[in-house]
């Protein structure tokens, strides 16, 4: 996009953030009563809901059951009104299927699936409003929902995106920055061990710059972890008060 300055000379981005700054994150666990686990997250103007059912018996054909671990089943859908231009279908298009697969990969790396052999865990995420970083918001929401369902995990999974503009790595891209078409990196991190659960990079980037972008994304993911940890502690604290402990 010519004419739009993504990073000013003073080092500020279009929405007034610094290069490594995240958008405001607000989250809540236990949004719905009927699901086993649910969570809602807002990252700036991106809003996502995640719901978890399971572990339960395999639905549909039994041949899908895995003898040594649980099957993680993910569906990504984004509301028809979530984007600027109306979408015709909420799920089933190529992008949604790809997102579903990526989420599945991410959570197979984090959930201790070997504890529930021959069973199934469903993770459904729904984007209500999309303003860049939908993958990251979905992963963060799904992490909270899996925790809410009480499914054992190796660690939190925290995701964040990063980009590269004018020799500077930017964390947590908004829609405007994504649409400008520069290199983009999506990263899902297990913060305690520093392991990477998912890494995806599109567009061309010089090898020498990769380290900076990766570090920016990892730092942002660690910041997300601090925030999510606070949300979980707050939720558990409230729940224990309600139980009268």
């Amino acid at each position, binding site marked *: 996009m010519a004419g739009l300055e993504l990073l000013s000379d003073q080092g500020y981005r279009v929405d007034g953030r610094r290069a490594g700054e995240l958008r405001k994150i607000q989250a809540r666990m236990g949004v*719905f009563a*009927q699901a086993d686990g649910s969570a809602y997250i807002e990252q700036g103007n991106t809003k996502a809901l995640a719901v978890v059912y399971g572990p339960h018996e395999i639905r549909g054909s039994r041949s899908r059951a895995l003898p040594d671990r649980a099957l993680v*089943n993910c569906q990504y859908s984004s*509301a*028809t*009104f*979530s984007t600027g231009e109306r979408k015709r279908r909420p799920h*089933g298009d190529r992008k949604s299927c790809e997102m579903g697969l990526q989420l599945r990969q991410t959570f197979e790396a984090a959930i201790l699936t070997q504890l529930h052999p021959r069973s199934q865990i469903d993770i459904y995420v729904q984007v*209500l409003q999309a303003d860049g970083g939908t993958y990251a918001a979905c992963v963060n929401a799904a992490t909270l929902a899996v925790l809410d369902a009480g499914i054992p995990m190796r660690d939190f999974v925290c995701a964040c995106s990063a980009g590269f503009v004018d020799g500077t790595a930017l964390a947590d891209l908004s829609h405007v920055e994504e649409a400008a078409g520069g290199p983009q990196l999506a990263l899902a991190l297990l913060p305690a061990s520093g392991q990477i659960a998912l890494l995806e990079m599109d567009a061309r980037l010089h090898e020498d710059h990769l380290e900076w972008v990766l570090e920016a994304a990892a730092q942002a993911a660690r910041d997300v972890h601090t925030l999510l940890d606070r949300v979980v502690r707050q939720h558990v604290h409230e729940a224990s008060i309600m139980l009268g402990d």
Partner: protein
Amino acid sequence: MASVSLSEAEKVYIMHGVQEDLRVDGRGCEDYRCVEVETDVVSNTSGSARVRLGHTDILVGVKAEMGTPRLERPDEGYLEFFVDCSANATPEFEGRGGDDLGMEIASTLCRIFNNRSSVDLKSLCISPREHCWVLYVDVLLLECGGNLFDAISIAVKAALFNTRIPKVRVLEDEEGSEDIELSDDPYDCMQLSVENVPCIVTLCKIGCRHVVDATLQEEACSLASLLVSVTSKGVVTCMRKVGKGSLDPESIFEMMETGKRVGKVLHTSLQDVLRKEESLGPERPKVGFLG
């Protein structure tokens, strides 16, 4: 969950309760559960609303887009409905599992809302035969706790109330070709009148009585229900029997009377809530799903 299965004893318990005008959650036969309504929850829509009725959770987004009027009604805009039964509500809806229910609800909504007596469709026309506003009303079902139709109709009415359509002017140049000019001011917009927009009241026949706003458990005890759409003046605009059982004509009239009575009260309280929220203006703290 779209439906639950109950044992015979549980059904008898609920049916005897209804007979005595006392339901499992302490309500009478004509009482609604507590309804929570919030408008303007999704900022990239023209209008949106979220309604929570017991465990039923509905999010509606309205997007106004420019289109061409239908051939048979050249001077009117129109509404399009789409209902997404998302897997969030129940794993049964995964993939294409919710499509049938979604279609059924969408066609019912279209019949009730997309006509001149409910919405002023003429005001949606920009230039006859050429351009009109098409309102895409997208309903997202997030959790099912019974009585979907009523909750959806309340959410649709609230979202239409919240809808702001930008004002446009049609400019005609010398050669007779038309040009559409959008107002520069984002606050220069028109609002739809929702005075005549109906709400749906579903009456569930349980035993020989009927109840409004049935929960999932009560729906499991009922064989048939009657769906009545009522305007704020108590005029019935649409009626439909749903469910696998049958109803006798006498009880249909009884149910219609109840529907009118309950519908009027529902409209009054909904209007009050919407007006109150509107009067707070843009400073209103938004709760959304965080509350």
